[in-house]
């Protein structure tokens, strides 16, 4: 028996497992400059690798990244969840919503739900987010989520700030 990935629903979104049918939408996002803070830009092969390593992360850690889908249409809109690669300082709440879905509070809705689910399902109640100094968009969302900068560090050769989220209460 392997880890079963819980599905999380919000008003507008479904957070669910990696699916190959999401590939085209992710490839389009990861081809662009907007992917620079989340491991891109990169090509289709690398996005495929990310899907598989993301699915494997769930098995190794017991938690991981959900793909965010439109609850009505099923269209992939981004990803959120908890990352803890072997070279990560501690479990991180990550969130990215594709360009075309911005400005609607989708990222906030997805990240809030992921943070709550992390507390509920995995007992992770004080997550960090790792944010590049120049990623002002992500910083703004972190602030809106109640997080505050804690200290600067370096991850895989990139400068970044550790933001600390407020204590989350399990649902």
């Amino acid at each position, binding site marked *: 028996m392997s880890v079963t990935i819980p599905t999380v629903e919000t008003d507008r979104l479904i957070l669910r*497992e990696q699916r190959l049918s999401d590939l085209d939408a992710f490839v389009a996002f990861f081809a662009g400059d907007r992917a620079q803070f989340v491991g891109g830009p990169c090509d289709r092969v690398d996005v495929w690798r990310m899907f*598989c390593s993301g699915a494997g992360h*769930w*098995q190794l850690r017991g938690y991981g990244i959900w793909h965010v889908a439109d609850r009505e249409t099923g269209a992939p809109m981004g990803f959120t969840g908890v990352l803890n*690669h072997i070279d990560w300082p501690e479990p991180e709440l990550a969130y990215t919503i594709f360009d075309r879905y911005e400005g609607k509070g989708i990222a906030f809705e997805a990240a809030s739900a992921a943070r709550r689910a992390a507390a509920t399902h995995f007992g992770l109640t004080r997550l960090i987010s790792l944010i590049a100094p120049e990623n002002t968009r992500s910083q703004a969302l972190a602030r809106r989520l109640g997080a505050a900068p804690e200290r600067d560090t370096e991850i895989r050769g990139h400068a970044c700030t550790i933001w600390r989220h407020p204590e989350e209460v399990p649902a």
Partner: protein
Amino acid sequence: MSLTNAPRLDTDRLILRGPSPHDAEPMIAFLMDQDRAGGFGAYDNRGDAWRWWALNIGHWHVHGYGYFTIEDRATGAPAGISGIWNPEGWPEPELGWVVFEGFEGKGIAYEASHRARQWAYEDLGFTTLTSNIVPGNARSIALAERLGARYERTYVNPHMGEDLLYRHPGPKELAA
């Protein structure tokens, strides 16, 4: 704890099973061995090697198949990996194999990949399989030929560069 829903397959000397947590260190050691993993895809840091280990597990979940860990029945030690690998950018799904240090020269790769190929044909319904081998990997070419595979063409692999595509006999050919 099992990390996948891979079945267990048995041969005379080996057990093919899904990757498990205690395979991580031998797998990462192999991936970071530039000499031995050069023809497979080596990494120069533990972070990237760990991500490949996660990818290897996730392949089973995303595709429904992947690399088995080859377990040496006598000792229980992980001896390598073999199975079906299907990355984006590869021409077709391939039968792959790796044998860890200390397990070479015993026919383990042949015994494991022969069983994995049979599983792909009989249980997954594959009708053909390839193996992609970098030029100069004489040991792997010899094994492909021992398995009955034949050189088909040279192409450019997105990760490995120039690559030789070998095609295995299909299930009908093997049954004949």
